[in-house]
């Protein structure tokens, strides 16, 4: 059993414009209106870098900044786990197009933006963080893989870690062989122990697959969950806004599942036997 405490959430998706605005949508109190994903321009990057930043970088930095602001934690000292099913589709398409042409001169900036850990690199620069950072890929299960790595880090290294998951679409012709739904990114600041910033606790077990993954009641959110790999996180996010402990199952590869018990703040306080969350 691995356990960690959520201190802050950042969210960007279609009709999910930041965490506070998404709370009523995820709790069912407000209707989900799937407008195009709004990528807020991040103040983390200097203006010239901000203009040049590719979509994955803008998305990842926006949700990361939102989650850290909510957690009130120093991003410069917190380990990060980035996870994505594919990286920046536009960048790789541009490179492949140039390499298939008669003039194969690549842009050096485009080349360094093509690496899977580009958002992690910009995150480190923007937050001046020299903390360990990893960038994972597990195809459709990239969110589950990232959550596993982050929960394992929080447990074994007993330090805070932030998970940042994001996915964007490929342009044609790659979109035909790898269709991805609306751009989606989520960040979770996870701490090994409850703090004043804790909003929920997560207890997690990796177990053999039996039964189906958690789904969402709202058809548009369920469609998003199925179409964008990073949106496989939605059942966990919905559980964070519920008033009671919720069991969430996330598929992980063909053979396994992550079984989560998500306990909101009041439950965390009871669990630790204190009326006030303890400092960690």
């Amino acid at each position, binding site marked *: 059993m691995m356990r960690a405490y959520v201190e802050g959430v950042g969210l960007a998706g279609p009709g999910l414009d930041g965490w506070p605005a998404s709370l009523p949508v995820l709790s069912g109190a407000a209707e989900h209106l799937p407008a195009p994903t709004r990528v807020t321009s991040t103040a983390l990057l200097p203006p010239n870098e901000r203009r040049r930043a590719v979509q994955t970088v803008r998305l990842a930095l926006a949700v990361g900044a939102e989650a850290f602001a909510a957690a009130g934690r120093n991003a410069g000292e917190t380990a990060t786990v980035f996870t994505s099913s594919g990286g920046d589709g536009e960048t790789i398409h541009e490179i492949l197009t140039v390499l298939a042409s008669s003039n194969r001169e690549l842009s*050096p900036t485009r080349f360094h933006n093509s690496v*899977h850990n580009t958002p*992690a690199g910009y995150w480190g*620069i923007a937050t001046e963080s*020299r903390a360990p950072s*990893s*960038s994972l*890929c597990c195809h459709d299960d990239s969110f589950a893989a990232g959550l*596993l790595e982050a929960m394992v880090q929080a447990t074994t290294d007993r330090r805070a870690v932030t998970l940042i998951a994001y996915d964007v679409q490929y342009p044609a012709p790659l979109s035909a062989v790898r269709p991805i739904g609306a751009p989606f990114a989520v960040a979770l600041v996870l701490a090994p122990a409850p703090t004043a910033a804790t909003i929920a606790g997560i207890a997690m077990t990796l177990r053999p697959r039996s039964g189906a993954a958690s789904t969402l009641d709202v058809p548009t959110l369920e469609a998003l969950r199925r179409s964008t790999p990073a949106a496989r996180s939605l059942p966990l996010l919905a559980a964070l806004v519920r008033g009671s402990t919720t069991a969430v199952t996330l598929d992980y590869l063909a053979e396994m599942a992550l079984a989560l018990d998500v306990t909101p703040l009041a439950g965390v306080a009871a669990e630790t036997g204190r009326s006030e969350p303890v400092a960690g």
Partner: protein
Amino acid sequence: MSGVERRSDVSPLALSDFTVVTSLGRGQAATAAALHEGRSSLARCTFDAVPFATYVGEVAGLDDVPLAGELAGFDCRNHRLAALALRQDGFAESVAAARERYGADRIGVFLGTSTSGLLQTELAYRSRDAQTGQLPPAFDYAGTHNTYSLAAFVRATLRLAGPAFVVSTACAATAKVFGSAARMIAAGVCDAAVIGGADTLCATTLYGFHALGVVSDEPCRPFDAERRGISIGEAAGFVLLERPAARHGEDTLFLLGVGESADAYHMSSPHPEGVGARLAMERALDAAALRPADIDYINLHGTATSVGDAAEDRAVADVFGTATPCSSTKGFAGHTLGASGVVEAAFCALGILHGFMPGSPHTRSVDPGFRSRYVREGGRARIDRVISNSFGFGGANCSLVLGRVA
């Protein structure tokens, strides 16, 4: 070992078996012989008709060994090289024995790659339908292009069913998987792990590094006063990592510590003072509860770029002083990018097991401004504990401490 308290639950893990394939050869014996003899395998690049002069470490014979049958969907240069490596040194048999011991679901697969099967997509783009622009029907995205496909392929080949993912942090990828696996085993998520990975030649990296102006037109000369950049190589390497057990004899090597850091400086240039590199080495020593003086040899990242080598020299001298022998082995088989972490871990392991310190072919005179003790000519030496550095784009740094348990 010194009495420094460990900062995490991660304890030494046994490298039960390992294998490596580079342009030096297939498997441990061929690799050790070339390293010991100081024989470079870099050759003039004929790959994909690149129009500029450069040298590469190309693995021969990959065009002749397509993946077939139930693995046909994974067929690409990268996974062919991975398959070739899994067949060396009885590695697949060692994994099969571990599968018997623990069960397929208790063995993790944590691999690194930078470009996975990207060459396959490059070829597919050249064969787009003239009318529709569509990719050829045979192109398999999930089996070749996707970064995870390498781990999917290795899992399928070795019939493993435990947790898996691919770490893709550019040239630090297959070093960082040692850390992931150690944490997973410490957390009880799995009992053993197959780690390592593969990276292969493709146009994206050849033209990309050329565009950055860091590709040498001669075989790379790490730490040389007249170094002119990198020589790109390709490689696959794998390690079976598990908790120490009675079956591990005195020749067993251990992962003693992993140190990870970020540069927080630039996407494709290292911090000029080597701050991130220094942190990675310090954290690895800390995790291993060792002092700098306990390390017998440093395998440098040493890609032979002007700024990269200078930053690393500074970091090494800051941490270790000027007495600990160090060398970059990039002159043997090139910079194998995402594979370099596991490749150089394997080189170090061979040095420990066979009693030699690798030198640095093509390096003629060490940069007079450098302070570290650079070993140009390798030779017989008893080394028990080593540190191996891997630094990548995005400022991703990772140092591994490997060795015998004293």
